[in-house]
């Protein structure tokens, strides 16, 4: 489509400018990677609704919007106070902060990490440990097939790198904060997590809009989980109301590793998450959870692929969405069980609560099972709040507005209950309460 090509062309022009600027000092493998990814992006352009994976998500507005790459301008100054208001964790948490995709060392902090742990910007990691970056960067996320992974890879310059050596346990969650500050910017958060054998830690990804003006965030997270490691991953997306947020998450799990990811989506006018978990060794366990609370004209799309490429792995998916106003949700949950992947145990649940008549949901489970000794289940449901439950609460003195709110919170509780780490859980509780209306709102007003 013309608009899509126009969008791709604009980024191509920027790409060439940046490549000329950075011609010297960039390792050949990285230049080659960027060029290949850019070629891929230019060739494909922004997906259209004729593309099966984008059938229900129209990107015409994104393709047409004149966003410019964040790396072509100076980072926006954000006050320390403003950053502190956004943080969830205590000062005891290791933390990297990025503004419009650029590393902001002045806001980043954290205690000394155990030996064998690297937490740094991508640029620093390139200097200290290029081999580590080369081994993992763009080796997991499929930039050859996913245009947004390609766009990210083409422009990759900054990002977060977390490497945890074998047997290392980090108690405090690691908070990676990506702030969107300036309007009109394409920011591209890039996260690389490499968990050494039998390491254990929690990483929290935050995407927070400090502006209500339009912007485009294109995040790519790659997690390489070595044998026996256990990684808990959280994503909280609280972009501004006019933002576009594209996220690609790819976890590669080796033998006997455990990975959980829990994503809460609140912001952006259009948000798409493409998550892939690939089991590369037997005995892996993955739990994917998501909750999205949408209203107005928001559009939230989740495409999940769990690839059981090897035997004896377990996967669980639980995605719940609350839709109000004229919001739209898309869920596409694909479970692939390859011919050798016997004893696979996969379950998927996707439920939507529809709070208004104007909302629309497209939920599609896709089970592609090529092995015979497997257990795969899926379930999808859409519904409204039960009038009987509302009356039950009203008969106990709770007014209708508050009854609806309690029941809505009850609907997403199942996902929140998966979160065991404080204060992430209580932060999410507060965020949900704010999102669904203050508990005593009506009384404060009157």
């Amino acid at each position, binding site marked *: 489509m013309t608009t899509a090509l126009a969008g791709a062309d604009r980024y191509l022009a920027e790409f060439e400018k940046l490549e000329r600027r950075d011609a010297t000092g960039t390792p050949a493998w990285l230049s080659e990677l960027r060029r290949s990814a850019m070629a891929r992006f230019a060739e494909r352009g922004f997906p259209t609704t004729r593309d099966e994976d984008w059938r229900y998500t129209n990107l015409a507005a994104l393709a047409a919007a004149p966003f410019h790459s964040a790396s072509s301008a100076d980072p926006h100054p954000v006050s320390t106070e403003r950053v502190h208001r956004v943080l969830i964790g205590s000062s005891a948490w290791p933390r990297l902060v990025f503004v419009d995709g650029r590393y902001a060392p002045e806001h980043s902090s954290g205690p000394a990490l155990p030996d064998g742990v690297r937490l740094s910007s991508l640029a620093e990691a390139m200097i200290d440990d290029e081999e580590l970056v080369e081994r993992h960067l763009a080796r997991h996320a499929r930039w050859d097939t996913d245009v947004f992974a390609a766009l990210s890879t083409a422009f990759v310059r900054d990002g977060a790198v977390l490497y945890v050596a074998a047997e290392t346990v980090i108690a405090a969650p690691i908070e990676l904060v990506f702030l969107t500050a300036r309007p009109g910017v394409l920011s591209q958060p890039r996260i690389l997590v490499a968990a050494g054998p039998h390491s254990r830690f929690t990483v929290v990804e935050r995407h927070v809009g400090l502006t209500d003006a339009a912007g485009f965030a294109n995040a790519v997270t790659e997690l390489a989980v070595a044998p026996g490691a256990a990684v808990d991953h959280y994503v909280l997306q609280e972009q501004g109301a006019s933002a576009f947020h594209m996220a690609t998450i790819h976890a590669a799990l080796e033998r006997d590793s455990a990975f959980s990811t829990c994503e809460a989506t609140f912001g952006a006018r259009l948000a798409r998450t493409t998550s892939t978990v690939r089991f590369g060794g037997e005995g892996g366990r993955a739990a994917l959870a998501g909750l999205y609370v949408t209203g107005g004209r928001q559009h939230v799309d989740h495409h999940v692929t769990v690839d059981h490429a090897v035997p004896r792995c377990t996967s669980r998916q639980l995605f719940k969405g609350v839709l109000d106003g004229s919001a739209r949700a898309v869920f596409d949950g694909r479970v692939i069980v390859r011919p050798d992947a016997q004893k696979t145990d996969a379950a998927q649940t996707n439920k939507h609560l529809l709070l208004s008549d104007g909302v629309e949901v497209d939920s599609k489970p896709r089970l592609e099972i090529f092995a015979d000794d497997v257990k795969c289940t899926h379930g999808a449901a859409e519904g409204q709040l039960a009038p009987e439950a509302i*009356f039950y*609460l009203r*008969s106990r*003195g709770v007014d209708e507005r508050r009854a609806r709110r*309690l029941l809505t*919170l009850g609907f997403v509780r199942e996902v929140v209950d998966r979160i065991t780490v404080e204060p992430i859980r209580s932060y999410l509780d507060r965020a949900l309460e704010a999102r669904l209306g203050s508990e005593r709102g009506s009384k404060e007003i009157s």
Partner: protein
Amino acid sequence: MLSIRDLSVGVDGKTILRNLNLEVGAGEVHAVMGPNGSGKSTLAQALAGHPAYTVTGGEVTYLGRNLLAMPPEERARAGVFLAFQYPIEIAGVSNAAFLKAAINELRAARGQEELDAMEVLELLEQKLALVEMDRSFLNRPVNEGFSGGEKKRNEILQMAVLQPTLAILDETDSGLDIDALKIVAQGVNRLRRPDNAIILVTHYQRILQYVEPDHVHVLFDGRIVKSAGKELALELERRGYDWIKEEVAA
């Protein structure tokens, strides 16, 4: 306390209650009995304000107020409590959170300060013993996965916590084993005070062995066709409802 005059109620366009009259005074326990389909549950739901039940005529005065003009939550805040025949399951909302919301709504309506989570918990723990419920009940989602008996005891727990002025129990006794029945009866008896009133809607006389009613009414075909003292319940137990039907037909 409660005065029902010529009350007519329909559901889905079908008339269920026809010109029903009932007077309930403070300190009284009234048993409303009747065969299936006579309108017992409709009376209970209409008094609580269920929106599916349409009042087509008559009036109900509660403590001098026009009850029918009040939305369900207003009725609850004014002290009306309905123990549901089929308590509703609410996923993701714990019993404790549910009761905390209810307690504080009622307290706010009375101009009392809200209780915080700890204070609510203290209050709930006192009342749990009364219905012989374990503390773990508080953390479980409201009625979800509860047995029939547990659901009914949960209704009595709510009643004990919310301390209503007018409690309406809609067949709370049905389906209970003898131990659960005694617990329910004890909960009702505890509530019995000179300034409270209780309406026991029931099919069977069984619970009336443990809760002695002041008045027994027979509801048939949407109206109260017979009222007497507690001896009427025993007569109904002995003779069934057919003789009432014959009397009405005559």
